[in-house]
């Protein structure tokens, strides 16, 4: 699927510091959307600028953004989605899919074996969207999100073209603890 989209989604101009730190954060007013410290954003930007993409509306509003990274050794070399957010006014336009495709495209270029992400098990809307994009629940990570009470996460994955035999997306049968996630 990622290969198919490659033709259609060339890369957006990468996110600037101004966009990531100021424009994104100043509007991140939903308390449940993780707002990380400035260092978190700038570190990602300095390390993986190609994995940090923003889509802007014609009037210059941020419609959504994605940030991620590439990590792992050997056949665990993969792209990871750290954050994906679409503003409430810009939902239902397919932006999340566009942004995910960009990240998959970058991961393909980096010759990753798969792309993965973590999502709250309660976030049905997001889980469905990822499933529609070709992701499967690879494993459950117990009490991954701290809170009251702690919440489990699904570790969802989608294989890249390099993983010809789709070895990376054979689901685990048992849940794991956060400390066992590398």
């Amino acid at each position: 699927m990622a290969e198919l989209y490659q033709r259609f989604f060339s890369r957006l101009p990468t996110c600037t510091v101004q966009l990531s730190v100021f424009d994104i954060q100043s509007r991140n007013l939903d308390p449940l959307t993780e707002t990380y410290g400035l260092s978190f954003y700038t570190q990602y930007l300095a390390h993986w600028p190609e994995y940090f993409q923003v889509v802007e509306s014609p009037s210059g509003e941020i419609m959504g953004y994605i940030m991620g990274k590439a990590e792992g050794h050997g056949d665990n070399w993969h792209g990871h989605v750290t954050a994906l957010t679409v503003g409430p006014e810009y939902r239902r336009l397919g932006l999340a899919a566009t942004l995910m495709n960009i990240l998959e495209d970058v991961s393909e270029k980096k010759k990753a074996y798969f792309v993965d992400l973590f999502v709250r098990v309660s976030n049905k809307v997001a889980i469905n969207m990822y499933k529609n994009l070709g992701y499967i629940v690879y494993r459950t990570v117990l009490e991954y999100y701290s809170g009251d009470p702690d919440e489990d996460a699904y570790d969802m994955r989608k294989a890249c073209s390099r993983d010809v035999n789709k070895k990376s997306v054979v689901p685990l049968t048992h849940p794991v603890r956060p400390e066992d996630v590398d």
Partner: protein
Amino acid sequence: MAVRPQHMHDGGIVERRLRPIYDWLDNGNNKKALQEAEKVLKKSPTLQAARALKALALFRLGKGTEAHQVLDALAEEKPSDDNTLQAMTISYRESQQLHKVCALYENAVKSEPTSEELHSHLFMSYVRVGDYRAQQRAAMALFKFAPKNPYYFWAVMSIILQAKTSEDNTKRGILLALAQRMVDNFITENKMEAEQEARLYIMILELQEKWEDILKFIEGPLYSQLVPGSTAQASIPYLKKLGQWKRLNLVCKELLWDNQDRWDYYVPYFDSVFQLMKDNDDSSENSVDNTAEKCHEFICQLVESMTSGRTLRGPYLARLELWKRLSVDGDPTSILGSGLALCVQYLRVFANKPCAVPDLRPYLGMIPQKEREENCRDFLTCLGFDEKSEPDLADDIQRHISCLSIWRMVAAPLPADGALALAATLKGHYLRCLHRGLVTSNITEFCAVDSYGILAAHHYFYAGILQQSSAPVVEALCLLELVLHHSPANFHAKLLLVKLYHVLGNALAADSIYQRLEVKHIQLVSIGWLHCARLAPACAASRALQLLADTRAFLKHHGKDSVEHLTYAYKYGTFEKLVELGAWGARLEACGWGAAAARDQALLHQLAGPPALLHQPSRLPAVPADNRDLNVIVNFEPPQFQDEQLKTRTFDQEVSYLRLKDALVSAIALCIELADSRPVEEKKQHYDQLNACVDAFSAAMDKCRQMYAEKERISISAPFPSRIIAFVNSPVPYRELYGTALRLVGELAAGHTLAAQDLSTAAARMLPRALLDLTAELAVKGDPVWCMRDRLETLSNYLEFVGIITFLLGVCNELFAPTNAKKSKKKTNQSPDELKTSELLNKLNETVQDSITFLENILDGWPQYELPNDLEQTLANLSIDNKYQSPVESKLKNGRDDMITDVRNILKRKSKYLKTLLQ
């Protein structure tokens, strides 16, 4: 950041011994870390790493002096072992002595001249202090014995930064030519490896404005090898620079065929079309769009090419953009039909998406006002709705809301009764949906139905403004609290609630909602204007001090972090980001609100803080940066109310206010300097500075009074009028009051007894008159709740003055009766002149106390929030469950009472303190 280095070299005994110290430090238990370090040092007293860690623990325990003794001794030994150096680096970093890290590694590389790691640390140490020349030297040295690409490009980047900061054009040219030659060599030798290196090369060419060369490079094989598949996109800015409009036109068209939603391709496409039209390009090339007709044709083709599946907004918005651009100096109707019809068409297609409103907003202003207002109902009715429709499918509700919103954004503003009637209708829609279970929000998502309530609240606000009446605003508050109760994630409701509670002058009620916004990090700066800046003028001084401290802490913390981010950018070779990070750091460093917060905090501390010395803020930024986000509250007013100048005008006002406050803070700091025990002759310099400062303050007050005589319109989304307006236009003569009180300290310190006596008498005479002026300014005009906000601001200005004059009287006391002199002894030694001064100061002190009593009396008669009698009934009707109780009434009442109590306590403390000063 973890103290432990990522790779411990010594796997043996040393590592085992150090491990517990690292553990304690990383866990934040510095006391244990210190004990552990002492233990290790008992066994091996010379172990450098243990001593470095001990110093770090000492530093973190607040024992800076001891820590630096250890560090200095270690530095003398010129250590070169990584553990020691890293620990020392952290200590120096945390104590802001970054230059010492450079010296440390300079010595280390001398003893181990071929260590790649030490050289790279040396490079980073120069990055932290911004010494670009030394960076270049270090990077080249490193590259010589470790010939890796990143090191080479570190050197190139260091040269670029020297060029960028060089004021000498010739030198700049030479440096850039050198940087380019270095990369050119690499290209010739086929050594380029990474995308970032290619981008760096483009950066060098850009700085030399070699657009042609950039284009050649981008279109060459190397670029497409390093950055595959992005040549066309990358060439856009340079085709524009070179004025190659035809090519630009073709490139953008090509890209748009495959990416119909990419606005960043439409914009240069339009630029090219309009430039070609201006140039009267009559080329016969069919494929180039050089007329409005061809451009329109192209957009129509894009619309038609969308087959099944999702309808994209891009081509539709492009048509609106074309209309807008053509309408600047002509009438596009003959080609595109009416702009109004195009907007309506857009709405018909996209009304079921929440983006319809923000998408259309920029284009509504292009329709002439008369046409807009006469046909406004077209927007409301284009999908078969009117204001009374009662849709109950989610998609239809969204459509209805989009139509209603755009209708209000183009229609003529309603008179008060019309606004109230519409608000009631919209409220009815919200309640109907609520009762029918159509509110589908959960804790993370809000829903379309909420927008009925939001839109209703806006109309209640309009009515409130027109009637100068609080009742509609209270209605809005009740409705919004209900919306928020059922839609806890709706930040639009939260922002409006904060704003509307402030409209009624109730900062603490606003604070109850502000806390639910969980404002953090940069938001403390970007929306500081919304709440934090309004706390002091609403007499919520104690809460203001807390939030100002949070804001300052954020900015300070970020300042420390930002140099570390630069080192990451080098580490990962993201050179573009280096420049951006630098610009971003500078923007926060120069933050206007940050500077204002520092001064507000210093001044407010005199009023409401525990007794302490003045926090002298760092110097004012030369050009303060406007980091406010003024678009955070959505606005539904028609285009004629959109105030293009709002951001710059209000920021100018804020900067003027900032400068006034800065002068005050500086003057107070000088008063403190003057109060020390030096002989009078040595104080001349500070005395002159104080007078100059007061003169500047007075002159600025006069100038600002002329500049800011006009009243500002109150809008739901914009900040309240700057505090400078009420301050400089007040009938209370603050210019004279502050000037006199400050000069009094100066004259006393300079030993000019007569002048001091005159000033003290003058101040004592001025105060009772000022109270009369204050009373006049505080008079209730109309609805006492509606004018609460203005009256509190008036009161707060006077309160702040009381805080400062009280503090200054304390300084006078110190000058006049040094604390070390015994009271009894002093009395007998006083000359008649001194007795007179003492008497006059006592008189002034008592006058200030009288002012405080006067203010306390004002508070006694401070109005209550009178809620309409039928509100209870209304509230009962609002709820769907019996458990919901509208919190508005109690928030307003408690907010007011807590504010009054806070002010009373402050006044009591001031009064008590003043009594201790009487001699």
